[in-house]
């Protein structure tokens, strides 16, 4: 634990950011190319390494395995000035250091409103009541006796990229886009639980409530509830992490993360929405004219280049270069991702690799020969409905700068000739 804590303070990333090739990246390259080393051969080969001679740990050294100590910098980070207190705050997924489409459980971003509830599963109950034929109580054991399903879904906080409405602010896609994660959920359809209770004909809305100290609540329309919502108890094959709602959470595919109520304990069926705090005071989108949109549930089509990015600069110099990133849409699958190197004058089709699943992150790559000149990198996603990810300027023109939520604008990374990468806005 302490090793990982210290890893957060590891200055290498800042050195890279600040000094570019004069920092860690240059040191690495120097080690490989310095004349002396070439004459003697690469010591990584010619020297016998400790791990090649001495025995390592046996089994059971880590009954629950952790990443290599060399990956200690790959951790969630928060932005301390954003909130008053860490018990009602958010941290961010280290997207710049991940690949593929699945987010490892330990680095899925966290957002709590009353800290992490530590719920004893044996003392946990899920109640369904309201406009139902019979109000019911389920134990965890009861829930696990319903037929289960497995689905990979992205969960994105509606406020992801919310700090960027007024312009480029945070240097790192972890901070600009890290309120998203993507895991495989195991759970039972919410529909099955409601069928067990029997929804009355005037039951049009569902209130979901958590067991935490915020007793988080959201109103969800019945069409969505019956469509694809899950009551999930596993993520990526293991029990939900406490910070993700152990022992059971709601999964609301493609819709804003705040609705995915964690530590789910109560479902009330009603004929109207409840207008709870998180759907009135918060998670409503103030427009320039003073009106505010409410019930803006769907997460729009969005993408970001995760590498290169400010925390993952180019350290190898010119030549073969891999651009990679993530794309997603609350409307379904991603049809196309385009990448530009010149700030949107010319676009190239990126290659989507790995599973293309509805309402799941998609991984894209664009490989090219970098000539060492400065780049303005952007990605642009198009979803299965043909929605094209808009520019930030288009969003500002339509909404103003005080919406906080649902900023899915195109992100620009400026790559300098030395490989250092910055968050910028361009003309």
């Amino acid at each position, binding site marked *: 634990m302490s090793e990982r804590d210290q890893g957060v303070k590891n200055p290498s990333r800042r050195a890279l950011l600040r000094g570019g090739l004069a920092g860690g990246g240059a040191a690495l390259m120097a080690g490989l190319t310095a004349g002396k080393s070439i004459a003697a051969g690469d010591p990584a080969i010619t020297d016998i390494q400790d791990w090649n001679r001495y025995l390592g740990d046996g089994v059971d050294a880590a009954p629950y395995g952790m990443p290599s100590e060399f990956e200690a910098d790959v951790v969630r980070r928060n932005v301390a000035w*954003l909130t008053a207190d860490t018990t009602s705050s958010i941290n961010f997924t280290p997207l710049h250091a991940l690949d593929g489409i699945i987010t490892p459980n330990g680095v899925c971003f966290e957002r709590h409103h009353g800290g992490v509830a530590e719920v004893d599963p044996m003392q946990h109950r899920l109640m369904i009541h309201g406009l139902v034929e019979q109000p019911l109580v389920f134990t965890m054991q009861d829930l696990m006796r319903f037929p289960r399903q497995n689905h990979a879904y992205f969960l994105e906080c509606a406020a992801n990229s919310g700090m960027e409405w007024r312009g480029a602010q945070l240097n790192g896609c972890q901070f600009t886009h890290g309120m998203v994660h993507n895991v495989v959920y195991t759970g039972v359809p919410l529909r099955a639980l409601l069928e067990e209770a029997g929804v009355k004909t005037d039951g049009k809305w569902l209130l979901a409530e958590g067991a935490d100290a915020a007793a988080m609540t959201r109103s969800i329309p019945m069409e969505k509830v019956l469509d694809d919502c899950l009551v999930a108890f596993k993520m990526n094959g293991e029990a939900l992490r406490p910070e993700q709602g152990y022992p059971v959470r709601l999964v609301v595919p493609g819709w804003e993360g705040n609705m995915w109520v964690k530590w789910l304990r109560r479902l009330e069926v009603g004929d109207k929405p409840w207008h709870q705090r998180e759907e009135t005071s918060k998670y409503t989108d103030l427009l320039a004219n003073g009106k505010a949109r409410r019930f803006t549930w769907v997460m729009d089509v969005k993408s970001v280049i995760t590498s290169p990015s400010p925390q993952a600069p180019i350290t190898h110099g010119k030549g073969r270069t891999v651009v990679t990133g993530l794309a997603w849409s609350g409307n379904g699958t991603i049809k196309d991702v385009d990448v530009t190197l010149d700030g949107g004058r010319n676009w190239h089709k990126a290659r989507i690799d790995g599973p293309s699943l509805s309402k799941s992150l998609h991984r894209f790559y664009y490989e090219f020969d970098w000539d060492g000149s400065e780049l303005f990198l952007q990605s642009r996603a198009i979803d299965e409905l043909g929605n094209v990810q808009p520019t930030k300027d288009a969003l500002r023109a339509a909404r103003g700068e005080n919406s906080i939520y649902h900023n899915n604008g195109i992100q*620009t990374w400026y790559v300098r000739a030395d490989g250092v990468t910055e968050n910028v806005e361009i003309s």
Partner: protein
Amino acid sequence: MLKFPKSVLLATAAIAFSGGSVLASGDIDAGEKVFKKCMACHMVGDGAKHRVGPELNDVFGRVAGSLDDFKYSPAMKEAGAGGLVWGADTLATYLHKPKDMIPKTKMAFAGLKKEADIENVLAYLASFSAGADMDTAEPESTPTAEETAEQTAPTPALQNADYEPSTGPMGLGRVALPEEIAAWDIDIRPDGMGLPAGKGTVAEGEVVFTERCATCHGDFGEGRDRWPVLAGGQDTLTDERPEKTIGSYWPYLSTVYDYVRRAMPFGDARSLTNDEVYAITAYLLYLNDIVTDEAFELNSENFTDIHLPNEENFIADDRQEEPHWKADADPCMTDCKAEPAKITMRARVLDVTPDSDEGEGGGQVD
């Protein structure tokens, strides 16, 4: 995480304060959980700083109100001047009902009802206090086989057979009792559904608010540090920096009652009576100039007559009407811009990224 490992605590010579027995019976690990109730305002351990309340390292043996760099209530300073020193006994008394011991303390916490919670949290705090009675940390005896079995054996699952079983298609779960639904069903809708019987005046609300809410929200709902501002901000929604408060932004009063009752005070949820919530809600109306009479009483009868000023300014999700969504689904690929891109803004200018020489940026998380 503990400042003094348990083994060190055991070995160190004790400076005995009275009330060692209270500490001796406490469980440090259980105390760490109890301390979560305190964490919104207090820090303890490495790097602990003052927050709403003072940091609690070495609180055992500390004269009450004695830290120079923390702004105590005058009452707390007086108590210290009068000889109050924090130890197991004095802290136990204080934590049971803070305002019984120091009526004008600014600590908004109502108190710990359970003796075991007090013992445990004191054991936890003592582990960060060099001056605590070292009887605190009992040697951890090896549990007997029976104890181990007790700890590891699952609590028997709820016996559905003891209740009326579900008659649904799966026959899973059991029928919820009316008492159980009543215990959990605390939500309130704008039409008044869910409102409990009760009442409270503005004047009563001011007292409760000052005691329970003002440490974070400020005496007049102006918000301290980054805690939410609750009042003011009328006519700012089209400004460059809107102030979204109950009076300026929230559409429904029911949300205020519902949220205060379910989640406030932060870290001590569900501790207010229904009447207190009515009173606080009435006071918030007063702070927002929606009622102007301090004698005004809000109750379950007149609640739905009150409308918040911004109710009509909420609209349905019409994002799909925005011009950029009507753009060609086959967007431009080549020669899309006449001029080369130029940088118009750089994040590094603000330099608010964590791990940098960090300043504070703008914006909210929600």
